């Protein structure tokens, strides 16, 4: 696959605004549903904004368009953020977001594809998404198509052996139409990555497996945008962006706090959070 320069669709201020909307919507949804995982939604908001605002060739009017770029949120617990960006991009009505986790909803707490335009894969059990992404990329290559497959992983998810099966596979098959972004927010489910199962030297591991690697500040839309501007990073290799992020980014009292993997903001906390984000309730 030859490098393709993707023309910017949204300018930087629009990406920053989209990221802010993702954060605000996610906070509202998690509050309304008394749900968990707001911290992970906040750490990956800028990545989603750049992917859906600028990088990916998708058409909300044609979610099954054959040549669309594919996106898999392998860290399925960040569902609220993904549903938010899909609604913002017009894949389905914003009103759906109010049903998140409610009785009869299509929008479950972990990503579900069924009846939800724009969702490629249901996820929630960690370590599945990269293999499926490899399959999509392999099929795309086999058919001579030019679409790309983007897979967003969590850091904790890289504890799963199945991730490393796929990390071995993709370079061997020269899947340069596959792009992984790791939301490396340094906090996993029950402790910091350093404490639980240290991934460092993380970039070296990917390099050793044959990936083209970039490390960026994943909470800087400009940096994310710059990193994904030209894909693949190297012809014949899959690309990985190790996005250093802050769990809970954008809401001061949630930043870097493990508790916000679980806690749901109450009404007062939501108000404070939205005020910090500079959006109305």
């Amino acid at each position, binding site marked *: 696959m030859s490098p393709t320069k993707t023309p910017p669709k949204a300018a930087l201020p629009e990406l920053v605004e989209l990221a802010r909307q993702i954060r605000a919507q996610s906070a509202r949804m998690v509050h309304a549903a008394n749900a968990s995982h707001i911290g992970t939604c906040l750490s990956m908001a800028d990545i989603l904004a750049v992917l859906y605002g600028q990088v990916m060739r998708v058409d909300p009017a044609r979610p099954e368009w054959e040549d669309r770029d594919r996106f898999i949120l392998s860290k399925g617990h960040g569902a609220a953020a993904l549903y938010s960006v899909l609604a913002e991009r017009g894949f389905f009505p914003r009103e759906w977001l109010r049903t998140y986790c409610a009785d009869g909803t299509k929008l479950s707490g972990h990503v579900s594809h069924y009846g939800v335009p724009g969702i490629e894969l*249901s996820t929630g059990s960690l370590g599945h998404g990269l293999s*499926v992404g490899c*399959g999509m990329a392999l*099929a795309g290559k086999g058919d001579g198509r030019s679409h790309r497959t983007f897979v967003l992983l969590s850091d904790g998810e890289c504890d799963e052996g199945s991730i490393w*099966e796929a990390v071995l596979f993709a370079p061997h*098959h020269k899947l340069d139409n596959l792009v992984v972004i790791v939301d490396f927010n340094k906090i996993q489910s029950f402790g910091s990555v350093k404490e639980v199962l240290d991934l460092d030297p993380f970039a070296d591991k990917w390099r050793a497996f044959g990936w083209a690697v970039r490390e960026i500040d994943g909470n800087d839309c400009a940096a994310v945008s710059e990193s994904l501007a030209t894909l693949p990073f190297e012809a014949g290799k899959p690309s990985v962006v190790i996005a250093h992020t802050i769990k809970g980014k954008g809401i001061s009292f949630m930043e870097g706090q493990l508790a916000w993997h679980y806690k749901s903001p109450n009404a007062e906390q939501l108000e404070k959070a939205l005020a910090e984000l500079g959006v109305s309730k």
Partner: protein
Amino acid sequence: MRPSFVAALCEAAAKDPRIWLLCGDLGYSALEPFRDTFGSRYVNVGVAEQNMTGIAAGMARAGKIVFTYSIANFPTLRCLEQIRNDVCYHEANVKIVAVGAGFSYSSQGYTHHGVEDIAIMRALPGMAVVSPGDPVETTLATRAIIDRPGPCYLRLGKAGEPKVHTSVPAFELGKAIQLADGEDLTLITTGTMLKDVVDLSMRLRASGIASRVLSMHTVSPLDVAAVQAAAHETAAIVTIEEHSVVGGLGSAVADVLAEMDGPRVTFKKVGVPGRLYHEIGSQKFMRQLLGDVDAIARGTVERARAARAQK
């Protein structure tokens, strides 16, 4: 069964470019005809069944019909959650093939005994569980699962199983094949035991017991009508399988019988006992775990006669 499967797969792949084959670094002296003819649609993914299954789901999402292939429990239990979430929940067109059903790899040890796979795979919604009884059924089953969209599990023996069918039977997924008929007893079997069960039926007939023989090549969806008919038309039912008695063919049949109205048919499950075992040996030796199948069948007919006499 394995050569019949590969031949049928090659025949289908020649006509249908959507067919791909992934293997988990197994298939020596079996998959070469596919590999050598359809190299661009063949991937040895390495010893990585979870990845293999996820890749298959992703390819199926892109319109492919993807076979995954390995032995014993590797393509099923090792990657069960990928099958449940990535394949079944997405109704992906993935066909899982395991060779080494039951005790086909008997002396290789406990790890290589596939005796819980039917139970576990048939618990998955939308998964067709297909366990052909001989090479003829294997060919027909391979064609049938390609034609059926969605997840399928094809459970095969190894190579060298005897042909039981002397002509090509009508074959439909979910419809049992009847190989003999009689009123005293119905013997229902699946997969690798078919030849033994046909032989048993002939021994019984020689001693005055007339039995119906059903090859239940599809365990899920089960041929409920055939089970109900057997319960109405014959005096007893014995299920025989090279699989645990917990959750396999026998359990599937028992579920049907338990929900039927009217007088109960006398029923017995024959299979691998649901206990930990430590026996190791040939397939014939391991099948002793099923018990004395002749005696069980005769005993079940006696129980049925006694039950009738009481009425």
